[in-house]
């Protein structure tokens, strides 16, 4: 099957570090083709992550207010210890050359600095404090039954779309 990414007109550098397939256009992209149900393992990983977000009150509007008012160590403790465990895991994966469950090599992609990390970062920070949520918690809050957060999520999708629309005109 032909790879549509290769034929698409994108020649610019990828500044979006979460979209891996854009980084790996011409690099040994995985040749493994799996049936859709192989993706259910990510659904399970998401369920695990969602439960932790709710039980740790990361999805709490109040916790986010406390964090930005320096009234609680809770969020700093969570992010700090998550980074420590994440960094240690990445170190071990590199050191021991751990492979994926399909025996593929695990790869890392260096991020490039753009002004977007400053402007976008500030704008996201403002929105984070207002809504008391970052993207992950938005999904969890809707699951918790706060159905009106669906509007916040839709608005975030619109925001992403508008960024894509204005991208060429914005400083990077």
């Amino acid at each position, binding site marked *: 099957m032909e790879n549509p990414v290769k034929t698409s007109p994108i020649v610019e550098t990828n500044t979006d570090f*979460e979209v891996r397939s854009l980084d790996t256009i011409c690099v040994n992209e995985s040749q493994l083709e799996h049936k859709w149900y192989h993706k259910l393992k990510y659904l399970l990983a998401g369920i695990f992550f969602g439960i932790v977000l709710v039980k740790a009150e990361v999805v709490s509007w*109040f916790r986010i207010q406390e964090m930005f008012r320096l009234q609680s*160590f809770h969020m700093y403790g969570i992010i700090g210890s998550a980074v420590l465990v994440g*960094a240690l895991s990445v170190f071990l994966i590199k050191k021991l050359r751990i492979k994926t469950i399909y025996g593929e090599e695990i790869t890392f992609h260096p991020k490039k600095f753009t002004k977007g990390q400053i402007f976008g970062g500030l704008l996201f920070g403002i929105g984070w404090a207002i809504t008391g949520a970052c993207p992950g918690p938005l999904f969890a809050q809707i699951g918790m039954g706060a159905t009106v957060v669906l509007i916040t999520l839709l608005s*975030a999708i619109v925001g992403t779309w*508008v960024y*894509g629309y204005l991208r060429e005109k914005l400083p990077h």
Partner: protein
Amino acid sequence: MMQILSKPWPWYVAGPLIGLTVPLLLILGNKSFGISSSLRHICAACLPAGIPFFKYDWRKEAWNLFFVAGIFLGGFLASFWLKNPEPVQVHPQLHQELSKYGIQDYSSLVPKDIINWNNLFTLQGILMMVLGGFLIGFGTRYAGGCTSGHAIMGLSTLQWPSLIAVICFMVGGFFSAHFIVPLILSLK
């Protein structure tokens, strides 16, 4: 056991569990932890509108959509099976500040006094939910990641651009919490 699990989990339990999501996704299929890009894939799937930023094969990134669907289900499971019967505990100073704005309801992690369907049709509600959401979507994509992609995955892989992004998240958040949020809360 269920009683312990239904209490709010301390940071030193939850933080490492969140950190373990990084190797979990890497080992499951060489995936970089990051949530906000799911919003981009939704745009690419639903309304690419010929915009180059949305012209890519989003199906290759579909794992991310399964992951966020899981977060939604996880939110559901946690609040129905492991619901904490106690009201949300907050710092007394925050409690005092919020009571000035008429926030009394501590039964949910999402404050029902301000984040509800009726309030959506007020200026306060529009700023909180619509503008706030817009800034999340626009800002994270402009920055190339959110708390998961930059703060957790980026810092775990020692990327200095991610450190800059995280510092800017915090600066924006501090400014907003001290100057913008009180303004929005005082609207009624």
